[in-house]
């Protein structure tokens, strides 16, 4: 039904963005005009100003939405829908040649060989000084020193250009030629290249779980993709290249044997435990450095010069090919850009955790779609809809089965002809178990309703029990003093601290959450009703006595209405606290509800869903508050005017 929304998100966003820009400009112009003429009859600090002006509200809303579009890369996607795909192709090249760039001073300051040489020599120096003379005897100490010396010699051999293996020289030449070839191809241009037909059938950017389509959809993308595949082959050659020469090989071999000898002597002799651990720790440290040297990844200082130059040129060629893409990348794609990892490309930075507004709308529409089989809803339930529920089920909820057991007579038995004829008691049991059809009534349904239902039931119980108790506590010494300790002891505990206990006792279904929320609402209602009742002016009570009212009538017609403002404020606070507690409780346990959706979304890192739930919670909370404020104005208009 809403597939057009899914496919055309980019164009929809473009329309919205242009509208927002217009709104922003127009509202600023109106705002400035208004300000200039209001300045004449308002002094600084005039309280009239708190009334605000719709134009600045519009400016604020447009700005925040535009910022949202911007930082979520929504603008890039709306106006340059191919950007994501092309950036993905470029990211493929970065991934393909990552091992080569790591060896060169491209993303770092030093050649990898230089870094390795420096670090290993430093550590060998330290080991030489820290040689443990107390656990190794003289002969062994000399041997260890020799190992260290030979390790240094290995580095020396690797660094000497004369000793560089001819294999590696040839390999580097091949690779650098390869890069030159690739640069040339890139500079030749991408005119005439045609994307693979399969690529054009991919879902658009952001319309599927794969954020960015992987196959190139533009000629430029095709060229970049092709280049990345060729570059991958060069990387393969590079990774295989080793700097092994005969001299180095020989030295590596003898050093290895010496290390093994010492390790063997450690294992065979009966050293005390702490001596043994000191001995093996030292030899392990020596071996660790040796292992970094024996794979031959250190090359002479200028061996990679030519390769470095050709790779730098290759990057230049890529930048030339990217052309306009560079500008879009820099201006409209704030954050870390696109990276390729394994089988997909993903947005990084704010583009990742801040979903595009249109994606959020699309996710919301999908969630709100009551057609579960058609792919709507989430985890088998939509957001807010209705369904038929059996009246029998409602009755069964209230009639316990054990009540039927108390009925006179026995349950029926099967007859000798093998037939079961239910008697009255059987039929009553069927009623208690909801097994008969009594018609159905429409009932709300969905995740939002599940959450609302819990709050409403808990709030109803909290008000129904809390207000009477609170009123009595407000007028009776006994009630006040008897119940005060109980309520004051449990009330200050943060509701969520109760959650693990309550949910364990009552289970993860509605009962547990309703009880938890009931505890929250009950305490607040008791305290507010108590404050309201005890705040009744003595003169009003005395006046009622003189007017002939009985105690019960004073309670009903004077104390209760007098407590109404406090009670309504209590309800307003209860709703807020219950709502917050509920969402957290749903995150802890449960299978439906807004908090549940957010928790699942968190686990699967679905940022759109997280934002949708956040927005729903915010809007519902706001709706509650507006409703309560309206109710307060309607029911207690005298408040603050007495």
């Amino acid at each position, binding site marked *: 039904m809403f597939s057009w929304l899914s496919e055309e998100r980019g164009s929809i966003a473009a329309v919205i963005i242009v509208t927002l820009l217009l709104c922003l400009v127009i509202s600023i112009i109106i705002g400035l005009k208004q300000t200039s003429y209001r300045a004449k009859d308002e002094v600084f600090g005039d309280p009239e100003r708190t009334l605000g002006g719709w134009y600045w509200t519009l400016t604020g809303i447009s700005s925040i939405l535009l910022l949202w579009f911007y930082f979520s890369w929504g603008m890039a996607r709306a106006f340059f829908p191919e950007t994501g795909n092309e950036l993905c192709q470029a990211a493929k090249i970065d991934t393909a040649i990552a091992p080569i760039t790591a060896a060169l001073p491209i993303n770092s300051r030093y050649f990898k060989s230089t870094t390795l040489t420096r670090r290993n020599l430093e550590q060998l120096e330290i080991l030489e000084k820290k040689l443990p003379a107390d656990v190794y005897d003289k002969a062994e100490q000399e041997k260890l020193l020799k190992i260290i010396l030979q390790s240094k010699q290995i580095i020396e051999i690797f660094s000497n250009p004369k000793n560089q293996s001819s294999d590696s020289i040839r390999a580097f030449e091949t690779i650098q030629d390869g890069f030159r070839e690739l640069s040339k191809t890139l500079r030749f241009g991408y005119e005439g290249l045609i994307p693979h037909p399969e690529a054009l059938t991919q879902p658009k950017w952001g319309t599927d779980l794969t954020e960015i389509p992987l196959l190139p959809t533009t000629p430029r993308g095709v060229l970049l993709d092709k280049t990345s595949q060729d570059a991958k082959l060069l990387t393969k050659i590079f990774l295989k290249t080793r700097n092994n020469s005969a001299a180095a090989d020989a030295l590596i071999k003898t050093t290895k044997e010496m290390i093994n000898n010492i390790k063997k002597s450690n294992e065979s002799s009966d050293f005390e435990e702490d001596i043994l651990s000191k001995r093996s720790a030292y030899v392990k440290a020596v071996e660790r450095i040796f292992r970094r040297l024996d794979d031959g990844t250190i090359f002479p200082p200028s061996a990679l010069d030519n390769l470095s130059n050709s790779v730098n040129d290759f990057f230049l060629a890529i930048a030339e090919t990217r052309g306009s893409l560079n500008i879009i990348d820099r201006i409209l794609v704030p954050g870390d850009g696109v990276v390729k990892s394994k089988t997909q490309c993903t947005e990084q930075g704010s583009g990742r955790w801040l979903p595009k507004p249109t994606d959020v709308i699309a996710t919301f529409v999908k969630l709100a779609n009551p057609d579960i089989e058609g792919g709507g809803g989430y985890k088998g339930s939509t957001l807010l809809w209705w369904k038929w529920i059996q009246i029998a089920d409602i009755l069964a909820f209230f009639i316990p089965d054990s009540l039927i057991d108390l009925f006179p007579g026995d349950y029926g038995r099967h007859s000798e002809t093998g037939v079961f004829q239910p008697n009255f008691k059987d039929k009553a049991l069927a009623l208690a178990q909801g097994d008969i059809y009594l018609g159905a009534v429409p009932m709300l349904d969905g995740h939002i309703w599940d959450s609302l239902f819990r709050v409403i039931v808990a709030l109803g119980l909290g008000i129904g029990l809390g207000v009477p108790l609170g009123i009595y506590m407000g007028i009776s010494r006994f009630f006040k003093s008897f119940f005060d300790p109980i309520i004051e002891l449990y009330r200050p505990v943060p509701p969520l601290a109760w959650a693990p206990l309550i949910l364990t006792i009552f289970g993860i279904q509605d009962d547990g959450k309703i009880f938890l929320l009931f505890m929250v609402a009950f305490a607040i209602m008791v305290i507010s009703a108590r404050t309201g009742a005890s705040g009744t002016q003595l*003169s009003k009570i005395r006046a009622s006595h003189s*007017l*002939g009212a009985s105690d019960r009538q004073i309670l009903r*017609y004077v104390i209760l209405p007098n407590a109404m403002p406090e009670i309504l404020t209590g309800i307003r606070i209860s709703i807020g606290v219950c709502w917050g507690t509920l969402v957290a409780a749903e995150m802890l346990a449960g299978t439906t509800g807004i908090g549940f959706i957010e928790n699942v979304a968190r686990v699967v890192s679905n940022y759109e869903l997280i934002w949708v739930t956040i927005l729903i919670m915010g809007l519902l909370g706001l709706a509650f508050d507006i409703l309560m404020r309206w109710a307060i104005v309607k029911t207690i208009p005298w408040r603050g005017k007495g």
Partner: protein
Amino acid sequence: MSDLVCENLSMTFANPQTGVKIEALKDINFSLKRGELLSVLGPSGCGKTTLLNMIAGFLNPTAGKMSLGGNLIEGPGVERGMVFQQGALFEWLTVSKNVDFGLRMKKTPESESSKLVEKWLDIVGLQGFGDTPTYQLSGGMQQRVALARCLVNGPDVILMDEPLGALDALTREKMQSLILKLWKETGKTIIIITHSVEEALLLGERLFVMAPRPGRIHKEYNLPFAGKGLTKSLRDIKHDSYFGEVREEILTMIWDMEEEIMGGV
């Protein structure tokens, strides 16, 4: 016989923390005939309000007894209506619902009560304000509602605890006339507590000046002004030479008492 009789009334308050006893009232004796208007004056702390609360039945005297028309007073009752300084109206009810309150508690039929309410609203000058919420009324109008709410129950005695204390001078004068008019028309016994010597003189047929420590009736006057006030302008009465004389006497009396309490300034 609906005289209000007080015999040897005493009231002692004990401070619950220190146990120190204070004699708020000691040996009060007086009787009030039906239809008399008594005003009570005195420095603060002389037990005026305590006396009124005892007659209303909100407080039980520690000694002595009170009776109204031969019946002992042992608690609040409809026959003793009370008007408070701030009206003590029920702000969640409209004007007519406030006036109707006592009738509703008695479960008077709607047809009967609505007529009574209309009638009393007319008398106190609030016709047309029946559906107005009380929090929208001015102070003077709120006191009119309080009067009507009290009178609709048909009490024998009306007790007024500084009923005009919070009103501005002009409204006050109008309300004084209203009280005199109601007194004349209904013939009710009225006890009015006030801080204003002029008001006490203008309204009181009888006047008690009370003294503190222990609270007692210091001096009693029988005055002609309330009767005159029904026909003459209240402002003219104030220019009467006798009025001025009594006023000065009472003012000096109260001044001396205050000075005694303060220890002289």
